[in-house]
């Protein structure tokens, strides 16, 4: 049995946690939710290649003013990787665990109060969390790994800026965290052509079926009117170039050793499309995102900072 001291300590922690966690932020979150964060006049895209995943993250962030430009001491951070499929890291079906672990560490070093990681997985979630390697990497780095398959953690919010997606059950981490870091993996996708930053946020919503029923591309873009990530970091180390998004084997991935980072989700996806040899204008959700002024797909209007770490 626990000692009385332990019991008291855990009761106190429980009380403190209950008094702090979900309700405190509700007002603040809902007040700001409908206003997408403004995109600076000229988007900046950092493209790094030929380094280790960690080295490329460090280089990209240094170019953008360091992690401290995005994460302030005491803030809560939600890291949203792609943890869609029960597949090992080498298959490229999920964001690589090394990248997730590195970003979590950087946030905590910057003084984040807490860092949480989740995804609304497609395959069975415990197996997916485990076999993707992300659960262990995130936990080892000090993050909370949160269930994305628990509907009680989702809240219904209205999305006034949405054309098709006008309301949705959204994971409370996405609604309540001070900072949202979007950590997708670049992949071919048999339904939308490709998946990277914008589409990864589908995993923040409970009912993906609604997207599929109501113009998938429009719904993907609509979500970004609710909340834009504070930063998008696309893992293009070994993108899956066919049979996506689940992939069949390691033969589906091609080593590109690249990381694409931008605040602008449309610009970073446009660059990602080109990595797969696709025309961004042919990917409907990128085109819609550009038309809705969620960002720009015209890379000539974007300040691209290129780094090669050979």
């Amino acid at each position, binding site marked *: 049995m626990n000692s009385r001291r332990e019991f008291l300590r855990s009761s106190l922690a429980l009380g403190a946690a209950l008094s702090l966690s979900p309700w405190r932020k509700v007002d603040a979150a809902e007040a700001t939710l409908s206003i997408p964060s403004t995109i600076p006049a000229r988007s900046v895209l950092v493209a790094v290649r030929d380094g280790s995943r960690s080295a490329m993250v460090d280089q990209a962030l240094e170019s953008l003013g360091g992690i401290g430009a995005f994460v302030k001491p005491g803030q809560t951070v939600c890291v949203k990787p792609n943890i869609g499929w029960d597949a090992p890291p080498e298959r490229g079906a999920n964001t690589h665990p090394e990248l997730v672990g590195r970003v979590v560490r950087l946030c905590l070093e910057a003084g984040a109060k807490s860092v949480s990681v989740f995804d609304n997985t497609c395959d069975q979630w415990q197996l997916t969390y485990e076999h993707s390697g992300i659960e262990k990497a995130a936990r080892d780095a000090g993050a909370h790994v*949160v*269930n994305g*398959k628990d509907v009680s953690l989702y809240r219904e919010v209205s999305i006034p800026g949405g054309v098709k997606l006008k309301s949705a059950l959204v994971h409370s981490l996405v609604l309540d965290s001070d900072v949202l870091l979007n950590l997708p993996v670049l992949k071919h996708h*048999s339904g*939308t052509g490709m998946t990277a930053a914008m589409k990864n946020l589908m995993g923040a919503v409970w009912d*993906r079926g609604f997207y599929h029923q109501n113009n998938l591309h429009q719904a993907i873009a609509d979500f970004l009117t609710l909340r834009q990530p504070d930063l998008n970091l696309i893992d293009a180390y070994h993108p899956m170039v066919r*049979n996506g998004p*689940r992939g069949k084997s390691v033969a589906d991935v091609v080593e590109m050793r690249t990381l694409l980072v931008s605040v602008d989700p449309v610009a970073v996806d446009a660059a990602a499309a080109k990595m797969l040899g696709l025309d961004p204008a042919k990917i409907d959700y990128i085109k819609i995102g550009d038309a809705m002024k969620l960002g720009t797909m015209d890379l000539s209007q974007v300040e691209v900072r290129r780094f090669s770490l050979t």
Partner: protein
Amino acid sequence: MRRPGLKTVRVAVAMFFGTGLTAAFVDFRGAVPAQIGHWLASVQLVPSAVALVMGESLAVLVAIFAATLLAGRIYCSTVCPLGILQDVAARLAGWFRRAPLRLPYRPARNWVRIAFFWVSVTGIAYGFAGLTLSLVDPYSIFGRMAADLFRPIVAFVNNAIVGVIRGLGGEGLYRVDLHWASAGALALPAIILLLVVGLAAWRGRLYCNTFCPVGTLLGFISKRSAWQLSLDPALCRKCGDCLRVCKAQCIDLRAGKIDQSRCVSCYNCIGACEEHGIHHRWSWRRQPSRPAGTADLVADPQRRSFLAGATMAITGSVAAVQLRAGSIGSEVGNADGSVPSASLGRNESPAISPPGSVSVDQFLDRCTGCHLCISACPTQVLQPAFLEYGFAGFLKPRLDFSTAFCNYDCRRCAEACPDTAITLLPLLEKQTTRIGVAHLDLEHCIVKTKGTDCAACSEHCPTKAVDTVPYGNNLRLPQVSRESCIGCGACEYACPAKPRKAIVVVGQRRHSHASRRLEEKAVDPRKGKDFPF
């Protein structure tokens, strides 16, 4: 010879099997390795008998019979989870009782026991082996209660606790999906749970000594067991202290005898007798010195019917299974066991059996419906059937793609199954075993009906049997290549079309092999290694 330690050993072994099996069945987080449940279930009588008929090891069955012949029905009080459950129920009921329960001796209702036994034997011998065994096997009866009733309740309690302590950070604690089986499939386990627990609270092991054919069979053997409990006429005062603790109502103080066929070897009476008048003794060598004419030595008509019944049960089920196996074998077209696609219509099944079960017919023959696979299944795609397979498949597990789909890299059901009903295939073989085939109806497909992209089916397909082709104005339309479809149900589960899904999996009566298309290493779509922007 007095052995006060016997009860302690009995309780310890019973706790081992009871907690082990309960943990395996109520495990809602995949925390208990499937092999543990498999091992604990494989030493149960009926699963090991089914496995034996299928050519598996004889050892377990021989061990159970040998143990019974040596020491009576120790199986019933230490290994059988339904027996253990009744002991727990009786003990719990005792806490709510003002006066301690004192069950007097009752003569055995042998005709009821024989009737139930014979009904079971007849069922097994005449082609309903799978159904009969699943209805009467005490281990499987327990399994269904634990998997279908206890497990969701435990998950519900877990979720309630998580709701309370969520603020603590939630590491290691999370809510789980609650899946209740359909009402039709839940009714029987619920009724039997009430019956068994009610009988146990009222009259101890009445169920085991009235209805259970396993109890009746082992009771027959234990009549002649080597070690037996016996009353010492020199010491017994007929005070009845032993009756207070006897759950089988098998101690006949008036005649000074213990009914060995009903005694479940719980050893409670030894310690209860202050006169030390109950012995646990080796009975065999003393037999010749017994006076001639004792009931034991007279030809026993019951024994004959038993021997005949047991023989019929075993030969009948072997014959039935082999007959059916033969008839199925001759049906299949190709030498490698695969079914030519033209015969798919003939090979259709209304319900889908798990990969490794070879065919629906073989599965229904071998499966005793213990639902250990249902507990082990991480996606919960395995659900107990009501009448989806037909009457013979009542309560047998089926894949329900409205709940989930079969995980491509998972074989936990086969790892758990103690009956050889789901055989453990090598992973690569499991991944090419076709349990059904996806049928796409484009008239209901969202890409066609709404003119927008969707492809949720193709997205989820692990073999890319469901892929997309360019369609209309920059859209992608699903298409199915049946050769590589394994029927895992991911497409059907994911299809968002309403009210009718545009893609559904039709089960295969006899599973077949899907082709695995190996592809060459993908090429870099960029020109050169530099950034293409």
